[in-house]
């Protein structure tokens, strides 16, 4: 599936929830189910420090695709991290650079990506794009 298709899929998953409570419960659930990042990657240099919650982001570039692993200490953030990984991990740099995580807006959780909400999520998206940009350049050189 393309990034956009997965985003669409997520939006549909969330459209079932009438109550915000169910929506957050679901987020928490998928946050809870996200496989923990390998402890050896839970290091300072992978840490994106929001004021309220922390996100660790690790990546590897193989076969032209970036594989991301990530985790957060807050479950709601971790749920959102899981969704972001679902769309952005295992993608080519070009794919990552070409798309925005607009699903967050559409499922009514835009506030969590606001630049004034320092939970680390927006910084995580930025960081993923930066990696994509870097690998893009490297690939182009080859």
């Amino acid at each position: 599936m393309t990034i956009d298709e997965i985003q669409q899929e997520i939006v549909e998953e969330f459209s079932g929830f009438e109550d915000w409570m169910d929506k957050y419960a679901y987020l928490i659930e998928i946050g809870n189910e996200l496989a923990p990042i390998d402890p050896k990657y839970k290091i300072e240099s992978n840490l994106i420090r929001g004021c309220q919650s922390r996100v660790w982001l690790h990546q590897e570039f193989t076969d032209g695709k970036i594989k991301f692993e990530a985790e957060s200490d807050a479950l709601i953030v971790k749920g959102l991290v899981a969704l972001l990984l679902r769309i952005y991990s295992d993608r080519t740099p070009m794919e990552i650079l070409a798309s925005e995580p607009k699903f967050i807006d559409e499922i009514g959780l835009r506030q969590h990506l606001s630049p004034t909400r320092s939970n680390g999520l927006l910084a995580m998206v930025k960081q993923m794009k930066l990696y994509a940009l870097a690998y893009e350049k490297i690939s182009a050189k080859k």
Partner: protein
Amino acid sequence: MIPDISQIRKDFPILDQLVNGKPLIYFDNAATSHRPVQVIERMNEFSLRTNGNIHRATHTLANKTTEAFEASRETVRKYLNAAEVGEVIFTHGTTESINLVAFSFGEAFIGAGDEVIVTEMEHHANIVPWQMMCERKGAILKVLPFSNNGELQIELLDSLITEKTKILAVAHVSNTLGTVNPIAEIIAKAHLRKVPVLVDGAQSAPHFKIDVQALDCDFYAFSGHKMYGPTGIGVLYGKRKWLDQMPPFLGGGEMIDRVTFAKTTYNQLPYKFEAGTPDYVGAIGLAAAIQYVQGYDHQILADYEHQLLIAATAKLKQIEGLKIYGEAQQKAGVICFNIDGIHPFDLGTLLDQLGIAVRTGRLCADPVMDHYNVENMVRVSFSFYNTMDEIETLYKALIRLKAMFGTMNMNSK
């Protein structure tokens, strides 16, 4: 006696709104309180009728403004029971007040090897200015620790103070632990050793009537926006004997007597420390806030806030896995806690969905986080416009959210 809260709430129309579809419950008063319409109206009236820059003027608007500004200073002086208006300096908040003292007292009295004492429970605003000054001066910052229950270990004070100790800075009320520190006792101990004391009153001025002469503190700092006044205005009280010896902090208009490029002489107190156009509208708003609070019997409001604290504490303690940080004998208006297995960010986010505003995070008190070895806390803080019903609603919300996470944690085990 319980004041008529429903009447009081009418003065705070901001409270009467829905947030995320639920009636707002505002439990973030320690961060900033709301302003009654009386304060806003006074500022409006002033801006729309009187506004003129103050001092040194011959025209009516400016003179009326000067009079209103100086009358506000007198209102603050009376409220604090300062000996004279020269000791009441308008700043832009607690943070600026403390920075002023750290800088100017530091310039006058602190040299290499001297010592400054703060406590482990201070807000960053009462740590960092001292750190910065100590670094500049080659002085040493020493720390009075607190016990796990949230009380300062006063018994260590005597050994902490040395010949080299030049000043001690302590919060009257902790913004995390809620502890009301025994500052009269601390001041007495410090004064025995000739050490002056700065009291960070950011969290006490909103709750108690302050008497700086009775406390005998050397400096007392507070913010308008935490005590029903506007943002951007605050106060530094200082004893004349210190202020007179301290060099100015900021340079500019009004703090000047005479400027030449060769030599500049400074104005008298309090103007020496008020460089630039002061926030006179803010000062007038702060005076209106003080007058608003004084319209009530201060003790009755304080007692009521205490009842809220007691009730909330009792309720929260019923929640399994909830840990309260700070259980000092004397507490005021603030409860910090965590619930096992729930991240404060998650709790804050979900409470907000229920219309309940609490603060979460590190609360500008990293050393307190480190003391308890946690990354974040949840804080609820009260004002006299809060109600027992709101506490009940908070309790029920926490139970509900805890259940939501309870199932989750099961899954992950």
